[in-house]
């Protein structure tokens, strides 16, 4: 795709990315959202804040994360050169920490002493519990009961970090219900509690705020690829659950002549109806405070998402992705459970890196893209997290997939 226009996704003053985004929230929360927006723009404009943020990213989470050329893997595929942006090496094992550091620091500046969060895979929960410990804040994590079961190691980590993990049994007992419950709790506790949303979803200002805290991924990748090969990559690939690791990687490149591919989870296959292909198969609706693509039935009831990866098992998606889809600036594809598991194993085998199942979706798509490209082309894929948390699931599925 050759790019001729300058891309400006926004958002506008009310948090709209084109027709998407906005603030579809209960009136009780509106003053808090307006206050948060005001505080976000004011505080993050201060040099002192940016300095504290960047010091924590460097010294506490270990940034910059490496950009690593996966030579054996690339050669085995025999196409484009694959570079991995190693978010798996950030403290706590995923990109989620970039955002929680930013938001906890903001909460701290705002004088809030209590934080809450929702979590799916548990990565955002762990990243939130971590910064709560770091800043000495009280922390509650809402997690679907389903996920408490399939991500037991992360539950244990959160508890070690002194967070209270609240299992959510309502609805489908997964990420979407954890978010419902966190919002309900916040409605009652909004006066002294800060809600750390874990992706570029939710009401304004969350999508813009989380994007801005995550753009460090793309900013670093751009600098690193210039240093390593002296030119920009030809393609970027990232998995899309809510869409934060993808926005983080893509955003600094939006105006460059580069193809971008977001990868959704096709679960057991699109035909089975058991998938999480929100942008590809969903339609425009309102969920969790913003307008975006959602999985829903004809009556506007949200339907269940399915994926082997808890972090992609979500029937919504960040509003900026919906706009990027409509603009055709980013192409959205999907990878099913079995393709993701094969890619998971391939990275273990060829590079000695155990990826998160979420990231394995991005890898599987990268392999397809790379195979169809010349050897002198370059793909950067976001390795959004490490796979330790998924060992239980992978083991329980047995070797049939590999």
């Amino acid at each position: 795709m050759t790019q001729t226009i300058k891309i400006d996704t926004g958002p506008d003053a009310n948090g709209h990315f084109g027709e998407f985004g906005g603030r579809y929230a209960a009136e009780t929360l509106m003053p808090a959202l307006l206050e948060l927006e005001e505080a976000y723009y004011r505080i993050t404009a201060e040099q002192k804040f940016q300095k504290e943020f960047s010091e924590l990213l460097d010294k506490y989470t270990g940034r910059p994360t490496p950009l690593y050329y996966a030579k054996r893997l690339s050669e085995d595929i025999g196409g484009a050169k694959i570079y991995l942006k190693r978010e798996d090496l950030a403290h706590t094992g995923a990109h989620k920490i970039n955002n929680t550091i930013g938001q906890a620091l903001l909460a701290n500046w705002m004088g809030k002493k209590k934080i809450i969060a929702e979590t799916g895979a548990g990565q955002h929960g762990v990243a939130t519990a971590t910064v709560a410990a770091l800043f000495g804040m009280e922390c509650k994590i809402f997690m679907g009961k389903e996920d408490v079961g399939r991500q037991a190691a992360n539950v244990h980590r959160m508890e070690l970090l002194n967070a209270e993990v609240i299992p959510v049994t309502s609805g489908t007992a997964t990420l979407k219900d954890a978010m419902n419950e966190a919002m309900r709790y916040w409605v009652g506790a909004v006066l002294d509690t800060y809600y750390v949303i874990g992706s570029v979803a939710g009401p304004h200002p969350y999508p813009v705020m989380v994007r801005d805290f995550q753009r460090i991924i793309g900013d670093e990748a751009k600098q690193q690829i210039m240093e390593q090969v002296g030119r920009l990559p030809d393609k970027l690939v990232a998995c899309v659950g809510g869409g934060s690791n993808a926005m983080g990687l893509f955003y600094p490149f939006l105006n460059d002549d580069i193809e971008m591919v977001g990868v959704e989870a096709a679960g057991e296959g699109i035909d089975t109806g058991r998938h999480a292909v929100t942008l590809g198969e969903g339609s425009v609706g309102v969920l969790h405070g913003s307008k975006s693509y959602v999985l829903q039935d004809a009556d506007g009831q949200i339907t269940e998402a399915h994926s082997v990866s808890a972090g992609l098992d979500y029937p919504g998606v960040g509003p900026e992705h919906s706009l990027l889809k409509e603009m055709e600036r980013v192409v959205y594809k999907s990878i099913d459970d079995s393709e993701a598991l094969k890619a998971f194993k391939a990275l273990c085998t060829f590079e000695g890196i155990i990826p998160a199942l979420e990231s394995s979706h991005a890898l599987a798509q990268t392999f397809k893209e790379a195979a169809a490209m010349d050897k002198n082309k370059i793909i950067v894929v976001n390795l959004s997290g490490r796979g330790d948390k998924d060992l239980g699931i992978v083991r329980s599925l047995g070797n049939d997939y590999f």
Partner: protein
Amino acid sequence: MKNIQRRFEQLKQQGEKGLVAFVTAGDPDFDASRALIEKMIDAGVDVLELGVPFSDPTADGPTIQKASQRALKSGMTLKKVIELTTVLREKTDIPIILFSYYNPLLAYGLTNFYDDAVKAGADGVLLVDLPIEESDELTSKWPGDGLALIRLIAPTTPTERIEKIAASASGFLYLVSKTGVTGSDGLDTSEIKMNVERAKNITDIPVCVGFGISTPEDVKTVAASADGVVIGSAFERVIEENIGSQGLNDLIFDFTKSLKDATK
């Protein structure tokens, strides 16, 4: 819309306050729900709020969540809530307000919704997750003024914001009694009184208070300052505890009557 105004004027003349009843439409199923609501109307409900069940009710506590789940399970949809409105309208002239999250309306089509709701005899709509900042999209698709858009204010709403909200409010202003979801307990009646007075200093339209009001005593206290009192979870609890029992309709009748008496 006029119907809401007329009802509150009537109440004022009679020296009464309004009993606004929220019921999840289709809980436990269409026919049972219809029978229950008719009992409530017979017992003296002044304004009916028909709850459109939604899969992800983020402003509702466990009681209304469960009611929505039961209704959805029985096959309830926005279309059927509008059908129920038509059926009820044949029997009563009290104001009927459709109480919903925004997504079912979006899926229905905003203009279609207006046409069908007005035709069915609905007088207004209240959307929990549609603040003033986002509501132009909805009202700009409405071809007439046949539906009141009931606005909400909360204890957290600053006074200047109440002024903005009141400026576009019609029907009545819904004051959320507390900083919390529906059905949560702990009613602070002096805070409610203060918030009602704050709103009444700003607007002339009736102010109704809801969330967490459950007994005739609560009603009496709140009705001392407010123009109307909204009861939701308390009805749903009676329904939940007595589903399938022969006596449910009578229980609902008696309970509604005790609440209505407390508004006089």
